[in-house]
């Protein structure tokens, strides 16, 4: 073909890194067939499943395709774990949530970013008798529930020192000890 052709007959593939392309006979449409790792699409303009970015800079400055960043809070056997353009994590597990599964879901507390195995986000499980709030409302990091007056403990399950008799919805009562006969 090259012997009878003209210099314009063979065009370079419109694909990154000189990768290959193919022309669909019926329409002349050109499709990149061997996009760089992590890239896909007609012109390798998108990221593959499990990656995100904007490799050709279609929506701003170019961002290479990188693996979904979900803080280890997605399952590696899952598909479609993040949005291929924005990187927003779509399948957070272990009671986590957020763009990158970076925080515990409502009703849970702990450190979603903790690297070690085990339960990163634990249920609030506030004691229904000692909390003035909801049983699943607690501080997202410490897990402290909102306790009734003179009730203490992370989950509001016991009385402060000097108080006794935790009554649901009321709290604890001051000890009525005779100062003369008490050691504290």
């Amino acid at each position: 073909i090259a012997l009878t052709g003209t210099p314009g007959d063979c065009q370079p593939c419109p694909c990154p890194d000189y990768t290959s392309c193919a022309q669909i006979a019926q329409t002349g449409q050109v499709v990149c067939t061997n996009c760089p790792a992590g890239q896909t699409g007609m012109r390798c303009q998108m990221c593959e499943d499990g990656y995100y970015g904007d490799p050709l800079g279609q929506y701003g400055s170019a961002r290479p395709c990188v693996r979904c960043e979900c803080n280890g809070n997605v399952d590696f056997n899952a598909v479609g774990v993040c949005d291929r353009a924005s990187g927003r994590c779509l399948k957070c597990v272990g009671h986590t949530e957020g763009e990158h599964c970076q925080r515990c879901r409502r009703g849970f507390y702990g450190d979603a970013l903790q690297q070690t195995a085990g339960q990163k986000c634990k249920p609030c499980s506030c004691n229904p008798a000692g909390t003035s709030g909801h049983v699943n409302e607690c501080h997202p990091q410490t897990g402290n529930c909102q306790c009734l007056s003179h009730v203490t403990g992370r989950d509001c399950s016991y009385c402060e020192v000097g108080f006794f008799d935790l009554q649901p919805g009321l709290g604890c009562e001051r000890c009525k000890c005779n100062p003369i006969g008490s050691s504290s």
Partner: protein
Amino acid sequence: PRPDVHPIAPGTHLLFAQSGKIEHIPLDGYNMKTEEAKPLLHIPDRVVIAVAYDCVEKMVYWTDITGPAISRASMSGGDINPVITTDLQSPEGIAIDHVARLLFWTDSMRDTVEVSKLDGSQRRVLFDTDLINPRPIVTNPAYGRLYWADWNRDGPKIEMSNMDGTDRTVLVKDDLGLPNGLTFDLDNQQLCWADAGTRKVECMDPHRRLRRQIVEGIHYPFGLVSFGRNLYYTDWRREAVIAVDRQSEKETDEFLPQKRSRLYGITTTPTQCPQGTDQFESQ
């Protein structure tokens, strides 16, 4: 015809999904004619997961998780037609009953097994309980049975039911990890699965519940299909299609696409619909 559908030659082929396209490998007997592998469909903006084939109308059906959608196209070239486009979140398994003309699928975010006619009409949720990560689904039209697997980390299982949703039963729950692939071998009436957790391919006679290991120590299987004496699976780590002879229990061949990326669902396109429906109906 739509330009991104490449008509393919008659004969049996393997179809598999890889990064926005469905590729086909012609089969010569049970051998993959790897040098003739070509794309059948380009859907570059979608992530195709599961594929199924209707031997009656010679149509390929697939799920994509980006639409999300279930679509179909004729093998002889033609438009891509959406079948289901609403109330889908993560459709990761698809199966066809070519006799009853039904489409079944799983959704791992809706946590459902669903059914409709092949054109998407008369849609119905078959199951929405006790499902965490349902993925592969297959039919046995001869017995009117449906099989699916759930890779729930806290209790993976393979289940079956009748196609109308009655008689739901757990078939396998021991020694399972991540059962990503499932296929029904009509010739031997065996249900086979590929497990990325135990790294095995195993088969079972669902009636007598006799279980047999085919291969072990494999890498990361995703899709699985049975054809004659072979099983073919896609592998995420090897980024390949691997053929396994079920009698010798050995890997016999592999196909590495030029493009290196994960491979998903796999199916076959037999030239004729599987026979045997009549002979099993009386049993």
